[in-house]
């Protein structure tokens, strides 16, 4: 059954790249997979680790459930009680509890270190699917749990992991006409939020470096908008480039050596895309058009750049070589297209689409074909990809004076839309690579 489950998952990937056959008005109407019932037994703890153990089981269940591919069973439905990590499970009893997969775990704490071990079984075939153990400082117990969840997710779905990741975003407080917008970072599941700036500047579009050690963002201060790089470990920030004109919409290159961004033109009418080499500090102009060219994003191999431009009268998505060669418009649907973000596997561009007065999030092939709208509504904007190219996160603004932006995620099949919990309003999310 797990084999079939996994085989069925592949069709979505295949069907996505093949076409959008079941798309009705561009909205996905098919592609749902029934989540796999999985029993995550309470992890066994040595003395003093009971709280950690309970928390870890909870993090794992939460990760798996949020992915949309798993349905963790309520512990009350368990018939057998696992009392030892070495116990051979009574598979008939787990089958009776309707579990297709079974996770057993063990948590041992010693000093300020914690070790988590787990085993994963296929209940029907009674096969041992895998297991592992991780050790880390105990304050990182949540990350250990994410690692375990990642392995379970990978073993069963065959998709690359993405739970042990972070989101950088903008924390929003204060009234709508005077929002305080701060740099913030949290775990992918919304836990461990940290505010990283004081809110004196209007902070926008933060993005991780490939090492997840730095964040580049733009901030509107009292005289201009500038691009910065913030070092997470040291808390230091520096201005990227010494430009007299406004700079904004930055993003790192895949090798982390360059930052690409928009610079306002000298006449103040337009914006073009520039690249700054962080080592040589050399700036190179990539586009030179009498129009607004912005939201640049490298392809994962660094050879191409997707961006948006209004050179044709409305915002549309273009793709060009990393040197600015061969600029080609790729979006030709009905509406305005913007904020292209290349998927980490290189196959798709995620984008914001404005049409019929609404704002949707969609994905398309890099040549503009195969558009699929994943979500539509009053205002959805600014997609970012999970490192395994399976999930798109974005922000959704709600109406009215008391409304505000919140973070949401959706599977690229268009299913499993989930809010990402944040304490305050939140916008401009960017997903980190898988943490090391």
């Amino acid at each position, binding site marked *: 059954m797990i*084999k*079939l489950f*996994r*085989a*069925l998952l*592949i*069709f*979505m990937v*295949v*069907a996505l*790249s*093949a*076409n959008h*056959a*079941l798309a*009705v008005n561009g909205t996905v*109407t*098919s*592609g*749902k*997979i*029934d989540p796999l019932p999985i029993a995550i037994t309470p992890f066994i703890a040595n003395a003093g680790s009971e709280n950690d153990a309970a928390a870890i089981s909870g993090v794992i269940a939460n990760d798996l459930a949020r992915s949309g591919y798993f349905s963790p069973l309520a512990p009350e439905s368990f018939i057998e009680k696992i009392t030892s990590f070495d116990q051979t499970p009574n598979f008939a009893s787990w089958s009776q509890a309707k579990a297709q997969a079974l996770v057993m775990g063990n948590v041992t704490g010693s000093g300020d270190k914690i070790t988590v071990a787990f085993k994963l079984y296929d209940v029907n075939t009674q096969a041992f699917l895998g297991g592992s153990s991780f050790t880390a400082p105990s304050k990182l117990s949540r990350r250990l749990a994410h690692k375990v969840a990642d392995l379970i997710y990978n073993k069963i779905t065959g998709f690359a992991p993405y739970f042990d990741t972070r989101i950088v975003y903008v924390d929003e407080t204060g009234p709508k006409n005077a929002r305080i917008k701060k740099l913030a970072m949290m775990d992918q599941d919304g836990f461990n939020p940290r505010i990283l700036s004081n809110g004196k500047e209007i902070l926008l579009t933060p993005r991780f470096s490939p090492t997840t050690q730095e964040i580049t963002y733009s901030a509107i201060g009292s005289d201009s908008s500038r691009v910065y790089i913030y070092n997470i470990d040291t808390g230091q920030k520096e201005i990227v480039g010494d430009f007299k004109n406004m700079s904004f919409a930055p993003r790192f290159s895949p090798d982390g050596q360059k930052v690409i961004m928009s610079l306002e033109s000298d*006449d103040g*009418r*337009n914006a073009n895309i520039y690249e700054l080499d962080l080592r040589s500090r050399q700036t190179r102009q990539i586009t030179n058009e*009498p*129009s607004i060219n912005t939201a640049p994003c490298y392809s994962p191999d660094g050879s191409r750049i997707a961006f948006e431009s*209004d*050179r*044709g*009268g*409305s915002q*549309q998505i273009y793709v060009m070589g990393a040197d600015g060669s061969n600029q080609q*418009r790729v979006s*030709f649907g009905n509406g305005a297209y913007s904020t292209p973000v290349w998927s980490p596997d290189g196959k798709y561009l995620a984008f914001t689409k404005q049409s019929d007065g609404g704002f949707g999030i969609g994905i398309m092939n890099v040549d503009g074909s195969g558009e699929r709208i994943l979500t539509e509504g009053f205002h959805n904007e600014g997609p970012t990809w999970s490192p395994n190219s399976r999930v798109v996160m974005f922000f959704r603004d709600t109406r009215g004076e008391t409304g505000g932006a919140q973070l949401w995620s959706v599977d690229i099949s268009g299913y499993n839309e989930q809010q990402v919990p944040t304490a305050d309003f939140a916008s401009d999310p960017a997903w980190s690579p898988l943490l090391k």
Partner: protein
Amino acid sequence: MFKRSIFLIAMLTSAALTPLRADDLSNRVDQLQDQIRQLTGQIELLNYQVKQLQIQRKQALASDVLPAPNVPNTQNADSMASPQTFKRFVKPTAPSQEANDASGQGVEEIGDGSALPPQPAGPQIQQVQQAQQLQINGGMNPASTQQMVLAPPPGTLGMLKAAKPGDGGFQGKVLVGPDGTAVADDAQQPGDQLAVAQPASAPVVDTPDDLFQRNYQALLQLRYPDAEAGFKDFIVKYPNHAMVGSAAYWLGEAYWAEQNFGAAAQAYQDSYHRDAKGRRAPDSLLKLGLSLSRLGQKDQACTIIGSVDTEYPNAVDVKKRAQAAFKREGCG
């Protein structure tokens, strides 16, 4: 080059429309840039449309040369087939002729054993079509193509026959009516003709059953785009209808017939997902596997084909076909 000419056009038109003022040079630059952008957008769209037309033209040419198996090609039929075959594609402006052509076997009666695509007549056509099918299907389905070449049975032109009775269902042919009655491959008689399409003015009644039947008729009449649109419509309109699993399955069959295996896979999976215990579920699972195989996803295809056995131990007929497919697809 393009750009310069646009700029000139913009300059000229703007100069003609706007009286010169000494103090609004800046505004005029803004206007010019705006006009350039509008024109650039129009040129981008025109280029895109030309490109799309070229692609369509290429596809049309390609289909002139290589008609898809199982899809009697209207172009070929028009140019090569006997008058009977030709008339099949003529819109029913002359009902009397159509009536003559119709065999009266009642293909609209789903599941009566005659639900088969139209048959072009004449030995020359037979050969041409067989050769073309071989080209396309060779390597994908050796058993079937071989069977067809060695012993082309009468009355099955324009479609691949299954290697053995009960092993069919892999060639995009409608094998089973929605009521579950098997449509025997060999029931086809040489004289069978497809009934004529319903007049375009036929009243459209929108009960779910009528919609389903209309779509199914479209499928039988090889009006695949109509069938696809119709079944999609059915699925959207009646997601909780008892026949929704079947609708998704037939949608898959329409795509399959067009060799649109990605779409077919999605539709079969949709059928399986919507009604995993439904009448079409075993078939859907099997055809999902076969679609994935066509898409080069062999491992997944084999897993899925292999699982028909265990998932549906009571679906005797489908199981047999799945077992045969398992071997034929080289799943070991």
